[in-house]
């Protein structure tokens, strides 16, 4: 692989692992547009000397100035808290790292990113084959440092926990996920009947 291509490839991996925040951005932009259109309308009416549509600038200013006149403190507090929480959601969307549930697989030619869900279903399949149970009896959760495998054995049939662990670890090693997560297999104490 050419040097420039490999540099761009590693940049693409880093970009794909994080959210672009396009959805909150569009929501915020639409909200600002709606507010601006309304303020523009009222300002234009005022400039042309027309009557205000809903509430004129003076009316709004005197209402804000008279706060909290006549409004119950509890209502005011609740409205403020609601506004604060909405703001906090947008702020956190911007400030948090925005990591997506994805993993990257090293590859000689291309940048490869895998949804955690895809890897989880492939691990679940290996675990299921090793344990000899049906798909419904295995649940795999992938975290950043831990792969959690939950198996419900079939009632009366012993289950080899070590074999499941080895199979899942082998699949992870083949996938070459970096960093290698720890595997934890949990076998449910009660089995299911009639599988």
């Amino acid at each position, binding site marked *: 692989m050419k040097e420039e291509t490999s540099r761009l490839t590693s940049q693409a991996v880093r970009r794909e692992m994080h959210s672009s925040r396009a959805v909150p951005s569009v929501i915020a932009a639409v909200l600002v547009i709606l507010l601006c259109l309304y303020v523009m309308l009222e*300002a234009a009416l005022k400039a042309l000397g027309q009557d205000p549509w809903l509430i004129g600038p003076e009316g709004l200013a005197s209402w804000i100035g008279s706060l909290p006149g006549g409004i119950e403190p509890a209502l005011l507090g609740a*409205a403020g808290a609601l506004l604060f929480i909405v703001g906090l959601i947008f702020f956190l969307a911007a400030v948090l790292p925005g990591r997506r549930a994805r993993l990257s697989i090293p590859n000689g030619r291309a940048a490869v990113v895998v949804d955690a869900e895809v890897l989880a*279903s492939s691990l679940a399949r290996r675990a299921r084959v090793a344990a000899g149970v049906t798909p419904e009896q295995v649940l795999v959760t992938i975290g950043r440092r831990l792969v959690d495998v939950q198996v419900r054995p079939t009632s009366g049939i012993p289950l080899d926990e070590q074999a499941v662990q080895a199979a899942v670890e082998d699949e992870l090693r083949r996938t070459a996920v970096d960093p290698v997560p720890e595997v934890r297999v949990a076998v449910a104490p009660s089995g299911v009947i009639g599988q």
Partner: protein
Amino acid sequence: MNQTPRTINRILLALFGLILMAAGAFTAALAVPAVARWWEAASVEAGRAIGHLLDATTLEGQRDSWLWLVLALLMVLTVILMITWIANQGKGRSGVLAHDGGAHHSGGRDDDGTHAGSPGNGTAAGDVTINSAVAEQALKAALAERVDLVNSSVSTWEFKGQPALKIRVFPRQGVAPYVVAEEVSALVQALDVTLGTQTPVLISISSGARTRFTRAERVR
């Protein structure tokens, strides 16, 4: 892979969030009697200042200040900026996979036959443009034959000023992602050889609604 302005997204979102948080905190604080008393005095003061400003900016013979027109224009400008911001999300699709020409004619590599013995060295006169549809359709046709994939999509994007391929595949449940990655990258290498160029490639192995509701496995 697209040209979404990620830094601007973060800055503007943080700003928007902070303004909302400040407005919310102020509204909630008004419920406290001490703050309400302070606001009563401060708002009268602020109202007087705004009144003076409006009086000062009212032209003779006019009823209202020209600041209202300025405000309306500012709002139009903000709306235009916001629409630009929205339009920039997810931008960057490209129709050209590779372009070869122009650059080879400079730096002493002229069409004087010095490289005539080595064809394909970019010495011939003229430009070569490979349309992105070439790679997209070739890869899509190759991926469509596979039974372990529910669906796939191939698109070309302009990434850091260079064309790049994005291959999105949706494997069936339980298919090992490393197998898919290896086989798709083998296809990409075959494409490299065919086209004679090497573009950055992103292989995205995803799960979608269709993978969840189709049968888990098939005989391969």
